[in-house]
Each structure stands twice: as structure tokens, then as C-alpha cells.
């Protein structure tokens, strides 16, 4: 295996596209190096993106949103007060990943590109309307929900990598939240994850996005669940409809962490709780 540590995105793209063997992007390595240690992969090349200055930055975009470089660690994300204030759900979801040791290395983009259905930051990014900025032969920008195509699979072509995640400008009277259920309080994989982002107008939900994790082969954006709360003040009836829409969208598996029946039920409950937190954060009462 070769190790390369380019200092520009262009050099990284060149290395990845010219490699004839198996090439991998190395961000925090908390998935990739585990797979290497367990002999699940035999890389010919690893391209470390952590020495590309632009990928280590969190910047305000001209339109008032945030651009988060692909190499920004969970710890660095959590230390950014402005970002945490604007998108607390996204930051909290990313900070749920692993231990303090893992936080020192793990990235949102690695979490996304590892393409686990249970990845914690992904539903939160999808609910927030985050976009992935892709570099390759051409540059393209796609919604985060279009990246994961199945367990361990993404829509990125050979030679492409994600340079940054952009979050839109936080609208006035908006809020987001992510909750996951795990049997212990730390260091476990989500049985279910639910993220809600919403915007209020005079106390009524005007816009909403709801996303679920660990209940299907990919993280899900559930439009029916958003429709269930748009136009409401998140009263009991709306919450009931939100829960039902989330449960109906689940196509989970049975495993040691939870049965199908359990996951379907918990998805609805967690989405309701996340919606209440998002509503409060948006200033709703």
C-alpha cells in the first residue's frame, strides 16, 4: 500500500483517478483503518485529505450558511459556537459518534461515505438540507440524501471525493434536532435515529424535513412525515400523524439490536420527541 498526503483537492483527485488498484480516501480513519485492521480491505493507495488546508476549515458562506471541510473532526465541529447555535441538531448528531478519542478524528463526510444505514450524522444533515460539494473531473453539488445508495455504497464515481458539506443559512424561527436510541448511553450503534428540522411562521410549522436512520438500507428522507406537521402547531394530532408516517416509512431488518416491530415503533416515538425539541428551538410554545 502507498500513502499519499496531498495539499490540494486537485492533487487528491489526480491521485485517486490515476490509481489502477484499489484507492481510498482517508479522512479520520475511524471506519477505514478498522476495516484495514480487520483485513476487510486491501488498499493499494490511501489518500489522506487532512493536509489539504481548505478541507480543515469551517467557513460562513456568502449566503449566510456554513461550509464544513471534509477533514473537520467531530471535536472541531463541536467547538464551533456559531455553527452549534445555528444547527445544534447536526452538531449534536456528529458529536454522538464514538468516544472522545473517536471524536478527535471522525468526520461527517467519512460518516456519510462509509454509507452505514445507522450513521448518526447523516439523518441530521439530510433534515437540515445539507449539500455535498463533490470534486472530480468536474465539480458538482448534490443533496446529502443522494449520496448513499445502499449499505457501504455511494453515488460517487471513481476519482470523485467530497470536499465539503454546506449547510444553508438558518432561517429565523427555525430549529433542528437529532435523537438516537441505543441500549447504553455511549459507544453503540443506533437502533433507530430520527432528525427533524423545521421553520415556524406565527407559531405554525411552515417548512419541515424529517429523516430517519437505521430503519432501512439507506438513511431516509420522509416527506410524508414532514407533510404531517406542516401547517400545524405540533399539537397531539400532528404528532400522532408524524409518528405514524415515520413508522410507515421504515423497512428495517431484525438483528441483535432490535426487531423489525421494535424499530418501526421506536422510529415514530423518536421522531415525535425530536420534533418537539426542534419546535422549542425554533421558539414555538
Amino acid at each position, binding site marked *: *500500500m*502507498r*500513502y499519499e*498526503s496531498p495539499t490540494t483537492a486537485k492533487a487528491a483527485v489526480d491521485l485517486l483517478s490515476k490509481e489502477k488498484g484499489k484507492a481510498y480516501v*482517508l479522512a479520520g*480513519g*475511524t471506519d477505514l*483503518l*478498522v476495516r*484495514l*485492521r*480487520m483485513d476487510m480491505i486491501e*488498499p493499494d493507495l*490511501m489518500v*489522506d485529505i*487532512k493536509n489539504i488546508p481548505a478541507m480543515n476549515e469551517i467557513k460562513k458562506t456568502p449566503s449566510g450558511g456554513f461550509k464544513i471541510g471534509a477533514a473537520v*473532526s467531530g*471535536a472541531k465541529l463541536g467547538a464551533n459556537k456559531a455553527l452549534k447555535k445555528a444547527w445544534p441538531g447536526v452538531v449534536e448528531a456528529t458529536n454522538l459518534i*464514538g*468516544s*472522545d*478519542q*473517536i471524536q*478527535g*478524528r471522525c468526520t461527517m463526510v467519512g460518516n456519510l461515505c462509509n454509507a452505514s444505514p445507522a450513521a448518526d450524522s447523516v439523518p441530521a444533515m439530510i433534515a437540515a438540507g445539507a449539500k455535498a460539494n463533490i470534486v472530480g473531473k468536474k465539480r458538482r453539488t448534490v443533496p446529502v440524501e443522494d449520496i448513499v445508495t445502499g449499505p457501504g455504497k455511494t453515488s460517487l464515481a471513481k476519482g470523485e471525493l467530497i470536499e465539503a458539506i454546506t449547510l444553508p443559512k438558518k432561517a429565523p424561527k427555525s430549529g433542528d434536532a437529532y435523537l438516537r436510541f441505543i441500549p447504553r*448511553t*455511549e*459507544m453503540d450503534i443506533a437502533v433507530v435515529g430520527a432528525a427533524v428540522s423545521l421553520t415556524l411562521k406565527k407559531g405554525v410549522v411552515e417548512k419541515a424535513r424529517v429523516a430517519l436512520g437505521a430503519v432501512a438500507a439507506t438513511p431516509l428522507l420522509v416527506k410524508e412525515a414532514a407533510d404531517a406537521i406542516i401547517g400545524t402547531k405540533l399539537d397531539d394530532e400532528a404528532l400522532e400523524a408524524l409518528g405514524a408516517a415515520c413508522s410507515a416509512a421504515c423497512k428495517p431488518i431484525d438483528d441483535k439490536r432490535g426487531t423489525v416491530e421494535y424499530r418501526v415503533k421506536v422510529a415514530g416515538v423518536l421522531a415525535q420527541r425530536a420534533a418537539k425539541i426542534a419546535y422549542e428551538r425554533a421558539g414555538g410554545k
Partner: protein
Amino acid sequence: MSGVHVTTTVNGDPVEFVCPADESLLDVLRDRLGLTGAKEGCGTGDCGACSITLDGQLVCSCLVLGAEAEGKKITTVEGMADGENLHPLQRQFIDNAALQCGICTPGFLIAAKALLDKNPDPSVEEIRYALAGNLCRCTGYDKIVRAVQAAAKDLQKQNRK
């Protein structure tokens, strides 16, 4: 051997080594540099026995490539004591019997120091969350938490002087 040539700093000393590109920093520290404080419990990021700091950031050295250490500042448990004087955390781990077999101890010391550097007066809950990435199969954790609390007090006294 074909490999990556790396220049780095370990516990304040300049260090150079050559290693295969896929070798972990943990293996480099232990097998090439003779620093056997960091331990391998799992090799997959779960146990924290391999904890070190990389440019001040707490990480699992089993999930870092040796090649990534280029130009970085590394600290390991070997750099914790000041000559013959143990760090207050080391002293309190002994006084509180916070270890039995000791395999987990270097990792706990490094993780606890990373916590106290950020938060000099942590609550029990904060200590337990901060050490959630470190596993110990001997002590049952209570004595470790007490040792960290006692060391936090010692360090506060030291800093007031």
C-alpha cells in the same frame, strides 16, 4: 525496507522512523520507538488502551497510520511524569488503587489528562462520559473515577500556588 520516512516529535523529542505505509502509529511507538506504554487491547478503536495525543488531540493510536505522524506533536504516557516526579493523575491512580493488571492504565491516564486540561473541575458524570472510550475489565471504574477527582483537586491546588 520500502516504506514511509517520517519526522515527528514524541514527548518533546525529535524522532525519525521508517515504516510500511499501512503500519499503525501504535505499532510504530511500541515496536520501532520502544515506547510500550500505549497498549493494544482491541486494535479497532473500542478500548482506548492505545490512547495518545496527536497535536494535543486525544486519539486512539491503533486508528492512526504511522505515516500520518509527519510533522506532528505526539504525547504518550511516557511523557507524563516530570523526571522522577509522577503526574498527580499517576500518583492518585496508585493511591486510590485505580489499577489491577494495569493494561488499561496508560490509556486512562492520557484520556483523563486530556479531560482535565480542558475541564479542571469535572463532575462525576463528565468524568464517566470522557472516559467512555476506555475499557477496564479489572477495577469496575469507581476507583478510576475517584482517582481522577482527587487528581483534579491536586492540580487545582498546584495551580493556585
